[in-house]
């Protein structure tokens, strides 16, 4: 069910509930009013009957005719009152009971008439009169009491019911509100997480789409987008390469023009001044040409490394082994530059699935950079650590000159270099390699203090190293 419908339905339900309770309360009120009206009427009638019975008693005691007339008058008054209010009475006690009262009254009136005719000397009739009078008054008294009791019952029941309804509505409002908002928040969190992981280039999906509501559709849409992005990932990388071709061309030209100019100037001088140069001079110049060609070769080789679509050979590996091997490879360079390397590797690291050669290349690049950034006596610190997030981290930290903040955002760009001798490709190649491994490489640097490169690689499986 869609959230829109759920909210609508729960709203309708609450309104219907409130209307129902309102109708019930109205009905109760009407009932109470009718019963009160009856009680009022029956109070009057009771008074009238009481008077009637007093007259009856007086007649039986004193045998005076005037009491009979009094009783007749009372019967007529009562009859009239009952006729006038019979709708109200029958509504409360029913037409049958009304008829019963009337018949009692008729019976009473008949007995009185008979006593009147017999001249008041008939003890049987007197007994009958007493009986009928008692029945009439008793019946009415009873009914009145009963209805009074009913009014009380209705009011107390209504009171209880209204209180319970109030609690029900309150409970529903709170619980439904909480349930809905919780569901919305949970769905939004899931979507937020998904969007974040996509933003990080991790085209994951929410596999289990249970809800059929709006969030379900949103998650499905994002899943679809994520899949499209994943499918198009290669195209995007290729497009990015094309886009950087301009930068690349300018960079290559710039990297090559200097050694080319150097060779050109050496040859021009050699040709022009050949006869004036000693043999040693000529050899020195040729050696410099050879050095410059090596420099050009390095640029071209790096460029090829960069542009090659690498077939990554992923293998399960222990990152500590790779780090150790890279440091060993660079030990000579480190010794020559008088750099002390401190290697601190965490044991029990999760294994990783990487192309060992490529990660080694990245480590060598970072170590070369660190060495070049430091003056003799500097300290290089290499650390591995397990993250809480199923990731393995490698830190390469130097105590070099640091990178000015304005360069930090460019250092992974192809051909960006702060060194006069660099090709500006090392870090850009490293970046490409780590990204191919679904990892991340970051840099933090403080001028005058040093630079730390952080490599983050996803752990592979649960296997621990010994």
């Amino acid at each position, binding site marked *: 069910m869609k959230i829109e419908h759920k909210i609508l339905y729960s709203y309708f339900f609450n309104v219907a509930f409130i209307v129902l309770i309102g109708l019930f309360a109205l009905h109760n009120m009407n009932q109470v009013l009718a019963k009160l009206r009856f009680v009022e009427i029956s109070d009057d009638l009771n008074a009238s009957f009481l008077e009637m019975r007093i007259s009856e008693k007086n007649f039986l005691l004193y045998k005076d005719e005037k009491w009979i007339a009094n009783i007749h008058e009372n019967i007529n008054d009562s009859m009239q009152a009952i006729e006038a209010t019979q709708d109200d009475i029958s509504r409360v006690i029913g037409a049958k009971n009304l008829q019963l009262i009337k018949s009692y009254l008729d019976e009473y009136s008949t007995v009185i008439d008979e006593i009147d005719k017999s001249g008041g000397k008939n003890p049987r009739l007197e007994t009958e009169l007493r009986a009928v009078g008692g029945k009439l008054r008793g019946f009415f008294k009873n009914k009145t009491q009963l209805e009074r009791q009913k009014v009380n019952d209705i009011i107390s029941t209504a009171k209880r019911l209204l209180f319970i309804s109030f609690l029900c509505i309150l409970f529903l409002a709170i619980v439904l509100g909480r349930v809905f908002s919780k569901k919305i928040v949970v769905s939004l969190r899931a979507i937020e997480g998904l969007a974040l992981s996509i933003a990080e280039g991790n085209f994951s999906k929410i596999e289990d789409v249970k809800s059929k509501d709006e969030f379900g559709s949103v998650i499905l849409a994002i899943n679809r987008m994520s899949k499209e992005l994943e499918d198009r990932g290669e195209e995007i990388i290729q497009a990015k390469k094309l886009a950087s071709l301009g930068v690349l061309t300018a960079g290559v*030209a*710039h990297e090559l*023009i*200097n050694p*080319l*100019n*150097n060779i*050109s*100037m*050496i040859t*021009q*001088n050699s040709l*022009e*001044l050949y006869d*004036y140069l000693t043999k040693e001079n000529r050899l020195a110049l040729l050696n*410099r040409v050879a050095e*410059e060609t090596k420099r050009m070769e390095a640029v071209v080789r790096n460029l090829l490394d960069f542009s090659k679509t690498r077939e990554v050979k992923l293998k399960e590996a222990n990152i500590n082994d790779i780090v150790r091997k890279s440091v060993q490879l660079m030990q000579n360079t480190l010794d020559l530059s008088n750099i002390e390397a401190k290697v601190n590797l965490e044991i029990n690291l999760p294994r990783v699935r990487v192309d060992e050669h490529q990660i080694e290349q990245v480590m060598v690049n970072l170590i070369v950079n660190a060495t070049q950034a430091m003056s003799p006596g500097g300290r290089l610190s290499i650390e591995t650590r397990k993250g809480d997030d199923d990731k393995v981290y490698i830190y390469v930290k130097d105590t070099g000159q640091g990178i000015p903040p304005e360069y930090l955002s460019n250092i992974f760009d192809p051909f960006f270099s702060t060194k*006069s001798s660099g090709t500006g490709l090392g870090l850009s190649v490293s970046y490409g390699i780590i990204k191919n491994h679904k990892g991340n490489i970051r840099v933090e640097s403080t001028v005058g203090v040093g630079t730390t490169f952080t490599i983050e690689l996803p752990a592979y499986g649960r296997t621990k190293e010994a």
Partner: protein
Amino acid sequence: MEEQRRLEMSKKIMVIDDEKIVVDMAKMALEHDGYVVETFLNGESALARLKEEAFDVVVTDFKMKGIDGMEVLRTVKEQYPKTKVIMITAFANLDTAIEALRGDVFDFFPKPVKIKELKASIERALEQ
């Protein structure tokens, strides 16, 4: 005659480039022609030297770390308006050329530099 030419030629030339080979080769070629040549690998040391003494011609690279060719040009023109500045650049970029010309550059050479053309340009600069 040859001796007089030599004397006339003993003009002072400054060459600035962060490529060691460029300044070495320029020095080799120009000294052979009888110029007095001093070379610098960056703008800072070159400007420090210029405070001490005037040069007749300054040949400088356009793109250098720290003080670049344009700044060298401006400073030289402020201190010694008569000194001629010749610019060498890796890229014959129109924008950089216009910028250099505005700064009253004498000549402008893209890399790779033709040494003969550079020499001819220096000769013209000294004739003026």
